[in-house]
């Protein structure tokens, strides 16, 4: 058997609100002065994109980056019930995860990669903090209201092909989106999210990757440029991996992963004997 690359599953943060993460250590012969934090989507999109983001973490780590993937509070393996998710809590979680990856890697520079709602959260966190070196927004949610509408539509579509649940979840303070509860409070938080209202740039350098044609990319690109981010935009033909597939397969969009690794590597050059892949 080949030796297994170093990946450490761990819990971090306060014990009563511990977050689950996977820390990918880079090979010792390659080192970059920047750590990477991966911000995952939420709900069913988190489940569907886990495989791709795990591979992205492995590739970034191969390229010399220490990488932390983590689950927000009430998501994945992290503590908290699924009903407990809050945008404010998740933004705090991102800050906590940034501290964690900095501590583990012994580095201060951080690049954040966010997919879908993870993209929206990382952009907001970056704008609030002002210390993110570079940011990759992979098909980010730009407008929370239309995101919510699409989730509700997806749920309605799904109900066409399965028996309708007995109970009306809305009366219990949350709605059911493909088995994930979306509390009324979280819905109201989602409705307020709009990346076009960010007042400060989320990072010095921003890469926007767009494979979903419906997310109003031009207005986001214009806005990010207007608030002073050095922006690169890539339109890629790739599957929308966050959506459920008919056969239950989990997709890994090689071209997107390659783009993220390549751009991040250009932004943060190697310190020693680094080879590009």
């Amino acid at each position, binding site marked *: 058997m080949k030796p297994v690359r170093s990946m450490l*599953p761990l819990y971090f943060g306060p014990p009563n609100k511990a977050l689950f993460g996977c820390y990918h250590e880079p090979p010792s012969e390659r080192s970059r002065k920047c750590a990477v934090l991966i911000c995952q989507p939420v709900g069913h999109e988190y*489940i569907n994109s886990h495989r791709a983001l795990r591979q992205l973490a492995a590739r970034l780590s191969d390229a010399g980056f220490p990488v932390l993937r983590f689950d927000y509070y009430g998501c994945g393996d992290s503590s908290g019930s699924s009903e407990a998710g809050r945008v404010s809590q998740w933004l705090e979680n991102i800050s906590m995860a940034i501290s964690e990856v900095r501590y583990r890697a012994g580095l201060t520079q951080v690049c954040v990669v966010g997919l879908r709602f993870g993209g929206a959260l990382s952009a907001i966190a970056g704008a609030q903090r002002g210390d993110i070196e570079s940011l990759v927004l992979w098909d980010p949610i730009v407008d929370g209201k239309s995101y919510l509408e699409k989730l509700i539509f997806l749920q309605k579509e799904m109900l066409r092909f*399965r028996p309708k649940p007995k109970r009306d*979840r809305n009366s219990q303070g949350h709605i059911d989106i493909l*088995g994930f509860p979306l509390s009324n409070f979280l819905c109201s938080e989602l409705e307020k999210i709009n990346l076009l209202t960010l007042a400060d740039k989320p990072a010095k350098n921003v890469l926007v990757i767009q494979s979903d044609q419906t997310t109003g990319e031009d207005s986001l690109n214009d806005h990010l440029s207007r608030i002073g981010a050095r922006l690169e935009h890539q339109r890629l033909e790739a599957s929308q991996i966050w959506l459920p597939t008919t056969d239950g397969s989990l997709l890994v969009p090689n071209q997107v992963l390659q783009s993220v690794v390549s751009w991040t590597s250009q932004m943060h050059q190697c310190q020693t004997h680094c080879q590009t892949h």
Partner: protein
Amino acid sequence: MKEEAVLFGEKKSLAGVVTDPPTTVGNHLRPAVILLNPGIVHRVGPGRIYVKIARALAAAGFVVLRFDFSGIGDSAVRHDNLQFEKSAIREAQDAMDFLKSTRGIEHFVCLGGCSGALISLETARCDSRAVGAVLINYPVTEDEDGSANADLVNRRAAHYYWNFALFNLKSWHKFFTGRANYRQLMQVLRLEAKRQFTSKSEIPREATEFEVNLRQLTDRGARLTFLCSQGDPLLDELRKAGGSELQHLCALGKVTLDIIPRSDHTFSSLDDHEQLLEVILKRINGITCSGKKIINTPQAASDAEAVSVGDSVGRVLD
């Protein structure tokens, strides 16, 4: 309750999370529950259901390990060319070894959905430390390569038509207003006619093996629970493959077949989750172990014949 991220296995390459009950005293006397990946979904499970199961069981006093098989989720890929069916069983056994060495537990219940159910049953067959298995939507008809049969789409459609569309006014409205999928309807009718014709003359090889496996396991004293979604075509396949042996074992209380009403294959609604959790807790609470001998509690035996999920319409082999 405490959760710990762990790496275990020969190469420390299998990633998982152990959920320990709030109290540490006497945990080793109960079987630990090992959750096996449902297909290629990582150990969190669809709708985060495995996390819910693990926490609910831990709150009831069980140590629970959810982990990823090699190449799935956070676990590294194997490089030894071992077939998945074999490596998965070996890795489930690694999980048992890990819980024995870290928690002193010697008996286990394997729980898994879909292909995780297949591996759970096979692991229980290969390793007598497994005193029970909870098999969610057990895929009797999977091909050797693990993929579903080619006509699965039609069988699913057939199941949908017979169980839901037939009683749905909207479906009839669509049928009479030219908006139904008539082509699929015809395919389904053809398939059903063919199945009715062949089922009388053919007994699939897998079904025979399946029956033998059930008998062997229950003779050893292992407690088996099949949990099936009412909205899943695999239920019909399971009934056919289990045949009279499954009925007989259910009647004896050695095997339980619980049907979760109004649920689908992946339990994609919160109502499905609640019902599933309720049944899992009930069934696993019914599996106890004392030394190497398993005690089938009288309650567990009687439950096998009269299942109810809250006030819903759970049935056994009706």
